[in-house]
């Protein structure tokens, strides 16, 4: 772990997160549940407070100082998000509540207007429910076929199986995770997109987990849609981003109707505002958008190379430490993986494990992780999952490992 110590100063980083100094039941908080939602650095909290205390009004429609300033601050987030994803243009950034809404937006708008009944949507065998259910709803309402690309036993996308799904030429869209929230697997986005494009399909990446650990370049991977959710990226809840190629957004009908997204309204006929406003009906999550900007700047200030190196080292450390525990099974052994480790213990159910860990101040997630079909594929009812963030330390992983040993004894 000495390499990361050189790359960045973990003590300084931890000091940016006020919650990390909280005690839980008189124990130090060991927060290993960042994949569910990350903690917030001071800069994010300060940006939100600053907006509310010094510079707040509704945006886009006001001619006064407060509204102008707030609009400017909010719209700067669009620039920051475009930069973060290396989007061609800021107008390709659509603000949504979270990844779930982003995927639903695409399923409703692109799915119902551009995909034709009889076409197929391809997902993978390791999707989060948020990237399964919208496509099932599209299937049931619009006559789309849903195809699932299986995973290998090591928890990677089975590329041969994936490619075979295109054989009949009916696939219109691929919607696939860029990193599994259960197995930690990164999917080979560039190859996935190339195969989709070679077969005339568009591709959406669910980057909810991927963008937390690694630099994303939507042009380099040649994506058509990419989404992420602010609260996992050290930002506020209530704000997320859908990126899509401008020409796709232009061709898509709006999703929600209301204020902000119109060009003109009469009872007979309403015309839509330009992209991205066409997709942003109603008063947006203004304060949260401003908070997300601070989160993006925080990420940029630490830098993805350092984040990726830190988390890769932590993950290696965790895999080594946990593998050494008797009776543990680690799910997923992908070559290319992010900071998420799922496991089961032979002696104890994941819930019981999580409850006992919690009593020692160690927060992990247990259950199906919103990925029930993947649980079935793995042949388990659920797992316990430890996930790492920018503030996680090797000592926290050691505490997890030691406590797991004790839990085995407790249930022996």
């Amino acid at each position: 772990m000495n390499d990361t110590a050189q790359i960045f100063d973990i003590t300084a980083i931890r000091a940016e997160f006020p919650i990390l100094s909280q005690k839980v039941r008189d124990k130090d908080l060991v927060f290993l549940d960042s994949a569910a939602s990350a903690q917030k650095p001071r800069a994010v909290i300060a940006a939100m407070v600053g907006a509310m205390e010094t510079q707040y009004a509704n945006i886009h429609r006001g001619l006064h100082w407060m509204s102008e300033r707030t609009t400017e601050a909010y719209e700067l987030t669009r620039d920051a998000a475009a930069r973060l994803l290396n989007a061609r243009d800021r107008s390709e950034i659509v603000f949504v509540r979270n990844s779930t809404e982003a995927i639903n937006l695409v399923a409703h708008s692109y799915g119902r207007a551009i995909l034709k009944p009889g076409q197929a949507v391809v997902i993978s065998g390791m999707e989060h429910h948020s990237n399964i259910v919208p496509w099932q709803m599209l299937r049931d309402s619009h006559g789309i076929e849903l195809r699932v690309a299986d995973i290998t036993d090591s928890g990677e996308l089975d590329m041969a199986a994936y490619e075979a799904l295109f054989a009949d030429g009916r696939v219109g869209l691929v919607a696939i995770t860029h990193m599994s929230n259960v197995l930690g697997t990164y999917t080979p986005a560039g190859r996935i997109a190339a195969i989709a494009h070679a077969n005339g399909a568009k591709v959406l990446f669910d980057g909810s987990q991927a963008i937390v650990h690694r630099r994303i370049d939507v042009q380099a991977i040649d994506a058509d849609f990419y989404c992420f959710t602010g609260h996992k990226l050290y930002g506020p809840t209530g704000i997320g981003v859908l990126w899509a190629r401008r020409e796709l957004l232009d061709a898509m009908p709006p999703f929600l109707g209301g204020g902000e997204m119109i060009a003109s309204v009469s009872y007979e006929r309403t015309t839509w505002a330009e992209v991205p406003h066409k997709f942003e009906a109603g008063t947006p999550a203004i304060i949260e958008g401003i908070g997300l900007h601070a989160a993006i700047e925080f990420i940029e200030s630490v830098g993805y190379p350092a984040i990726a190196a830190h988390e890769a080292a932590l993950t290696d450390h965790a895999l080594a430490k946990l593998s050494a525990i008797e009776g543990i099974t680690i799910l997923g052994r992908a070559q290319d993986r992010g900071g998420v480790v799922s496991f089961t213990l032979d002696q104890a159910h994941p819930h019981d494990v999580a409850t006992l860990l919690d009593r020692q101040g160690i927060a992990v997630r247990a259950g199906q992780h919103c990925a029930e079909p993947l649980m079935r594929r793995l042949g388990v009812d659920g797992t316990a999952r430890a996930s790492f963030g920018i503030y996680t330390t090797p000592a926290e992983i050691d505490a997890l490992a030691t406590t797991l040993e004790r839990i085995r004894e407790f249930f022996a």
Partner: protein
Amino acid sequence: MFEDVRDLYNAEIIARGRRPRHMTRLAAFDTTARGDNPMCGDRVQVWLKYAADGSIAETGFDARGCDISKASADLMVEAVQNRSPADTRAMFERFRAMAQSGQCPDCAAFAPLKPLAAVHAYPSRVKCATLPWHALMAALEGAKDATSE
């Protein structure tokens, strides 16, 4: 290390969680229903056989889940034995109240469920304890599914 969880993870619960006594599918039954806790993947199936007077003659269950839900199902089977459906429903309401609050006004009536009394101190585990009961209620009503939320 874990002395503080012995209130919930007591000997009775651990024993029943590991080796439930009534985790069997009834060969002959009058009604059955399933309970799901979608957030965590717990699932309990309950089978019921009525006596001639309409009371519960026999109960069996199958469960995938944690020690708490299995132990709760196992205790439930014994607690509802020979009870009328109305009685059973009332018992569920009292049990649910106890699981949520830790208080049980007339505990004597369901002493067999006492080992679960501490679950109220573990808010996210309350659903584990009540899940088998939701399945039982669904079975009594002739429904097929229940969720514990």
